[in-house]
């Protein structure tokens, strides 16, 4: 394009664009990356270091007690206590620094003898072995309290996933999400496709009014529907003696709420199919049902796929409808509901939250990257949509 060359003809401007886009990409990518990395980290490391340091390991400061004066051995004029700081707790990693005051827990570097006053010298090696020397006898039989900074190597694990899938009910929620999502994606496509064909190619009174109604209903906020429907479901439930919160109940709710956009998108597409095909099929004596099943459905595949992806993402990611139309018991929750519940009950346990979030968002992300083409096409066709 000529425009290209003139707009960013000079080097610095072009470089600036590259830099800006790179910055934007980083800003957009980093939040999700944080969750993915954290979900794979050891849960003890998550709380002591930021996830961006995950690959360089973490440094942890702990207090340990050296051996008491009774373990001292005389060495010429000096008394020496030696041993390992990890004797009690087992090795935590490599000691990088140590200190004797809580205010300055990493005052001295590991491997170098430090003069800690009072005629005392302390040497702690990276492997944890120490040598505590004094120019007179140790009086205290209680060991000295010191602080060490321990660098632990990066630790990655799949344990967090095991915990959430079996222990936190995420596995059950995954199945529930699928049970809600699959019918709530297929049923509206079927119903909307039939309606869209009727609105595009069949003659009946009130047709244009119905098209206007569908467009109007696209933007009606869900909130308007919740109260009457909740009451209706409860009444039907108690009338028939069945629970009011069932899978068919939520399938129908999702189907209905997705219906206006589905009809709108599919009607636009089906109305644009060549007239000759449909008319020649009619002349050959095919009924509208045959035409629909044998001609329209196969030809509309791109539009059906676009809407299917929308609806799938929408249902899978929905929280509000699931909260209202499905039970809130632990084995009834869908993934978004579980995640919401965990945010309340496990607020600080990031190993659980991040692993659960990972399980929740991985399916839509795979769908997204696999079928992005259809998604974009659908967006462009339905940009009248209100969500």
């Amino acid at each position: 394009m000529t425009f290209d060359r003139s707009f960013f003809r000079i080097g610095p401007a072009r470089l600036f664009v590259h830099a800006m886009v790179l910055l934007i990409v980083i800003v957009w990518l980093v939040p999700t990356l944080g969750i993915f990395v954290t979900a794979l980290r050891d849960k003890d490391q998550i709380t002591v270091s930021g996830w961006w340091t995950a690959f360089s390991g973490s440094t942890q400061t702990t207090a340990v007690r050296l051996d008491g004066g009774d373990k001292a051995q005389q060495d010429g004029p000096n008394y020496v206590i030696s041993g390992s700081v990890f004797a009690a707790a087992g090795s935590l990693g490599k000691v990088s620094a140590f200190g004797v005051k809580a205010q300055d827990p990493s005052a001295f570097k590991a491997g170098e003898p430090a003069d800690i006053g009072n005629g005392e010298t302390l040497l702690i090696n990276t492997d944890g072995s120490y040598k505590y020397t004094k120019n007179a006898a140790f009086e205290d039989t209680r060991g000295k309290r010191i602080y060490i900074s321990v660098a632990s190597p990066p630790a990655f694990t799949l344990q967090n996933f095991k915990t959430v899938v079996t222990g936190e009910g995420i596995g059950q929620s995954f199945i529930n999400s699928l049970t809600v999502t699959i019918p709530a994606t297929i049923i509206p496509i079927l119903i909307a496709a039939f309606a869209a064909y009727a609105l595009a190619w069949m003659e009946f009174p009130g047709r244009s009014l119905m098209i206007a109604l569908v467009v109007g209903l696209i933007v009606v906020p869900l909130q308007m529907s919740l109260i009457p429907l909740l009451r209706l479901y409860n009444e039907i439930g108690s009338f028939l003696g069945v629970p009011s919160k069932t899978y068919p109940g939520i399938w129908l709710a999702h189907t209905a709420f997705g219906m206006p956009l589905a009809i709108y998108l599919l009607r636009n597409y089906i109305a644009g199919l060549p007239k000759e095909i449909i008319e020649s099929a009619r002349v050959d004596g095919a009924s509208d049902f045959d035409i629909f099943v044998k001609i329209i459905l196969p030809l509309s595949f791109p539009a059906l796929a676009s809407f299917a992806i929308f609806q799938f993402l929408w249902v899978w990611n929905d929280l509000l409808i699931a909260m209202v139309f499905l039970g809130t018991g632990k084995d009834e929750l869908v993934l978004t509901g579980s995640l919401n519940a965990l945010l309340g009950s496990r607020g600080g346990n990031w190993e659980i939250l991040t692993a659960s979030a990972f399980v929740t968002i991985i399916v839509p992300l795979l769908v997204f990257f696999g079928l992005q083409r259809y998604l974009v096409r659908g967006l462009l066709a339905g940009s009248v949509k209100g969500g």
Partner: protein
Amino acid sequence: MIWQIGSALGAVVLGVGACAAYFLFSNKLLDFALPAREGDDVFVASRNLRRRSIIRPWLFIGPALFLLAVYLVYPVIATFILSFYDKGGEQYVGLANYQWAIGDREFRQSIFNNILWLAVVPAACTFFGLVIAVMTDRIWWGNIAKSIVFMPMAISFVGASVIWKFIYEYRGGNDTQIGLLNAIVQLFGGTPEVWISIPFWNNFFLMIILIWIQTGFAMVILSAALRGIPEETIEAAVIDGANGWQIFWKIMVPQIWGTIAVVWTTITILVLKVFDIVLTMTNGQWDSMVLANLMFNWMFRGGGDSGRSAVIALIIMLAVMPIMVWNVRRANQETGDH
């Protein structure tokens, strides 16, 4: 586990099967009840064919019409009526619920916050979307960049909330800050804060989440619109000596006003209904309440108050109304053009 998967699978097949069976059998039944086979009386056959073509559209559109009526049209009317009734929906109370709303601090707070969201989020998404669309169209790896900006569209609001809650995470005392934002603040010598509990400003921290999700949508649509701009208009501007800035604002933007309006209104409607983010991040605490969450709370608060809840829903509906009218008029024009 196996049993759960099996029963889930059974439910799926049953649900989808029932729906497919309706269309198949209702149409077969129609053909069977009004036969028009060769060899039949010509008059009867043509009459039956005519009747079929009158009935069949309703078989096709029936289920959709039923669902729209029960799940959308009826509730809109019922919600309107319920707003004049008491919490159980039994006693007529006139305008009492509306009076309550006007006097309620939380309600006014929600209105204020919603206006704040409306002022910031659609504008920010459209602006970033446009800028990113223009920039990514000019570089060879633009499509990869677009994919990444578009990606949050696939993530649920709840998932996005967890992602961002982790970024805003605060650790007290001398603990290492594991939230990215506080770590950065600390790096530059600032003091870490509990960002989502600072009244007024926390709204913006929640808005960032929605902007992060929705910018990709704006970018995709605006990028397509930008590609539709005739090149001659830009070439002419270049020849006339316009610089990049002028070309962008005076040539490109005016030609895509229509698309910008669509993007803006679509995000506006989304913002009016924002619920999940506020629920999971603050649940309306620290003055961050919005209408959709207040409405949901009143559905269940104190045993549920359908009257107050309905009033709040109506306010959201009222705000959507102008966009709805605009959409219908635009769609009518389009069908008229056909």
